[in-house]
């Protein structure tokens, strides 16, 4: 934040660097989530990385320009989508046994599509954690706008 009301975001250098890197950060987050059951990482860390990609966007470009891409309503929608996805996979498990039964076939180890419902649960957790982080950050930013009105 360059200390002023922060709507225009940071200096030009930061903006160009962000423009180049935010796609890579997002891609890295998606990689971590999808390979959660093969390599370290998983829904939690991948989700936070994706959340940080959006936070990076908001910090660099300021809240107004970034809100074309990522709005608070969109974030809470994705979060509810992640929650519903997790709960439905859990309740679907009731059909084949326990509450959170892993009912899909396990596939062959070391392959991307293996370990039954684990990748799907990873994706659900990623949506929830990433969108949750981002909406906490947006809620804190909104207060800044509110505060500047209070000061004037």
């Amino acid at each position, binding site marked *: 934040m360059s200390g002023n009301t922060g709507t225009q975001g940071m200096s030009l250098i930061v903006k160009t660097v962000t423009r180049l890197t935010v796609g890579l950060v997002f891609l890295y987050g998606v990689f971590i989530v999808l390979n959660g059951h093969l390599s370290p990482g*998983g829904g939690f860390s991948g989700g936070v990385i994706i959340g940080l990609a959006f936070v990076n966007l908001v910090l660099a470009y300021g809240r107004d320009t970034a809100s074309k891409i990522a709005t608070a309503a969109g974030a809470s929608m994705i979060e509810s989508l992640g929650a519903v996805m997790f709960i439905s996979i859990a309740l679907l498990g009731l059909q084949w046994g326990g509450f959170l039964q892993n009912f899909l076939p396990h596939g062959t180890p070391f392959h991307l599509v293996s370990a039954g419902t684990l990748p799907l649960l990873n994706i659900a957790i990623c949506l929830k954690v990433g969108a949750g982080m981002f909406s*906490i950050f947006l809620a*804190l930013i909104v207060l800044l706008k509110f505060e500047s009105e*209070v000061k004037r």
Partner: protein
Amino acid sequence: MSSYMPYMLCFVLFCIGIFAVFSKKSLIKIIVGLAISEYAANLFLILVGYKMGGRAPIFSPTETISPDLMVDPLPQALVLTSIVIGLAITAFLVAIAMRLYEKYGTFDVTKIRELRG
């Protein structure tokens, strides 16, 4: 001697965090103290699960690792959960600290209590 030294150092970190929470006036310092003791509690959980000369609990396609060489995976699963709990608590406390600053104009707990009347 070295059989419990890491536990003691981790416990000292926990005590520093708790001391800060009790003794500091500024809200931000209280949040900092709480974050430190959360890091120490998570670290203590992982220290309990470490096996000397063990391997990370992930199988690799190239070489076959025997499972009993692996470090204890259960505390790692628990710490994954308690790290995010720590973040949730920190985010909530920061939100309240900012609202208190906006209402009282200071981060100082003692001034806030006097103004409350």
